[in-house]
């Protein structure tokens, strides 16, 4: 039983002519204790994927099993409870509540679990100690540096001991030193057995991941295992390219990243078919990945 199982999951937004396809029949399996980096240009459906995995959103079509449980159709109250107990969210903009102290912010998920005040504060305090923010307990979020705020947010995500941590660009608002701090923390959490999914635009950060998933236009175009401590092979290719997009790229709506993914930047219509070849070579496990990749194998 896999932790996360996506089967032909699609997500549509809007109606009629304004319909956009955020996820296009994505199939994806994530096992326990994986540390997955999700990369891709803006608007490629990364966040939608994260939201669906985190039970904030429902797929329009397809099946989604979480811990073997079919969760795409259950009631919102039940979803909230599963979200509370199994998923921890970390956001790009930290999303700490400004009127609450760090301690209260970290303890907030426990409020919704019905834990008593004293126990809440004790648990939150212990968590902050683990994170290394014990001395900032009674600070307000505005008094923390970006890195500290993100660590506090991670502490909040961890307080219910969820099996999955979903971090949507956790380092997006941080400088490199703070990014390191946050990623080291996530890495520690991973070592303790949690499954972590994070979205990033920084190829350097794939060092921390055990698996990198590339997305484009709502589909997974590439999926590779990568050893810890090394930048993923595909990501490496875009590391030292010119960081700005050319005018042509802008016109075509294709980012630098897409160019560097093998054969992915040729044409929109054929990118998936072409991506399967290099992906298949790199594949070591038998895990099903992007739907089109597995489909082509048959």
């Amino acid at each position, binding site marked *: 039983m896999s932790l996360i199982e996506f089967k032909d999951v699609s997500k549509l937004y809007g109606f009629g002519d304004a319909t956009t396809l955020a996820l296009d029949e994505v199939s994806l399996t994530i096992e326990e204790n994986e540390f997955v980096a999700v990369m891709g240009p803006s608007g490629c459906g990364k966040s939608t994927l994260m939201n669906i995995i985190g039970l*904030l959103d429902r797929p329009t079509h397809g099946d989604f099993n979480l811990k073997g449980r079919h969760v795409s159709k259950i009631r919102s*109250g039940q979803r909230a409870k599963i979200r509370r107990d199994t998923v921890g969210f970390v956001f790009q903009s930290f999303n700490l509540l400004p009127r*609450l102290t760090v301690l209260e912010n970290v303890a907030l998920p426990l409020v919704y679990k019905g834990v008593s005040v004293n126990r809440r504060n004790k648990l939150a305090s212990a968590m902050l100690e683990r994170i290394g923010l014990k001395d900032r307990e009674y600070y307000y979020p505005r008094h923390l540096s970006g890195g500290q705020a993100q660590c506090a947010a991670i502490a909040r995500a961890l307080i219910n001991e969820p099996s999955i941590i979903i971090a949507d660009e956790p380092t997006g608002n941080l400088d490199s030193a703070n990014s390191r701090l946050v990623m080291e923390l996530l890495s520690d959490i991973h070592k303790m057995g949690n499954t972590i999914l994070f979205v990033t635009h920084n190829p350097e950060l794939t060092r921390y991941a055990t698996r990198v998933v590339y997305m484009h236009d709502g589909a997974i175009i590439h999926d590779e295992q990568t050893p810890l401590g090394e930048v993923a092979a595909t990501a490496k290719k875009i590391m030292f390219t010119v960081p700005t997009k050319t005018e042509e790229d802008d016109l075509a709506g294709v980012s630098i990243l897409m160019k560097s993914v093998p054969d992915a930047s040729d044409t929109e219509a054929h990118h998936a078919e072409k991506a399967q070849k290099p992906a298949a070579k790199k594949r070591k496990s038998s895990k099903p990945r992007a739907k089109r990749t597995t489909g082509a194998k048959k």
Partner: protein
Amino acid sequence: MATVSRGNVKMTIQSIRSTKWRSLLTMLGVIIGIVSVVMTVGIGEGVKREVANQVNQFGDDLITIRPGNAQQDNGKIVSNADLLFGLNSLSGLNPKDLGAVRGADHVRIASPLGVVPGTVQTSDKKLNNSLVLATNSDLPSALNRSVRYGDFFSGQDEQANFAVIGRHVAASLFDENVPLGRSFTFRGQTFVVRGMFDEFKSTPLSPAANFNNAIFIPYQVAERLTGGSTQMYSVLAKPDKPENTRATVSSINKAMLQAHGGQKDFSVLGQKEMLAASGDILSLITTMIAAIAAISLIVGGVGIMNIMLATVTERLHEIGIRKAIGATNRQILNQFMLEASILSLFGGLVGIAVSIVGVFGVRIYTDLKPVISWQAIVIATLTSLAIGIIFGTLPAIKAARKDPIEALRHE
């Protein structure tokens, strides 16, 4: 309601405090509503107590016989007469009735009260709106009052031009504290002041029956003055023993029915009925004014709803965060309901505090003596809480139904 723990209440209070001015303005509607209702009821209650005091000062066993039949339905008395002694009634009783009352079983004393119209003047002063009451020597014992200075006219001098005055007449007519032995002219005759009552407790609603402004003259003198056409507006009677009051009421009823040939065109009222009559009317007035005042409470509730709706939009991002970390719709609903309720409850409590201050103000600056009972405080508190819950529901439902992703995106 597990989420309504101490921590949540604290969080809510923090959020209210963070927008102090706005919260205060929001509460203002409820504050004004509560103050107006509590004050109205308080003043009404105060007047009711005053009337009760005034009625009770004459003793529990006083029986009043008035012309006209006060209709009695299920214990309530609907009366179109004056609140206290029926002085405004159109028809009167006559000396025969007085005799009938006197002759009824258990009656110890019976004293008539009739108004004699006319102008009272002294050598240098003139009282146009004087209240001259014709009565007999039994009045002091019927009213449970003895004359403070001088004497009341006794049986022998009921033919003589003697007068006994109320406390305020001394000041308005004679500029003297104790004007015993002074005289005045009334209907061409000279009267000598023989005694003066001490101050009667008065009520603002019944100035016509205010004995402090009255001049009492013997009934027989009044008959002489008016040529025997003095009408009795009421007869006051007392039983031989206080515990016989009810029996006396029925025996007077019987005697009067006999005297009136079986026609019930009079009423015999014990103190309880007197109070009920005045209390019912006062309650009616108070309820009506309070109902009008309660409209402002509804306006206050709408104000809370308005602000809560604005708050929901303003805090959309927060709602998104809370949902993302596992708050159920129900828990978000509870949070906003709690906030509206606390806001409204605070408004109610402030309103009660303002009312208490207001009552002191009214007591100091007017003759009214409003009272705030603990029942009024409890009801006001519960009402304000209920308003918060009622008007907080719609915004709370709106907040709870927000889509978490959209809410998170909102900054």
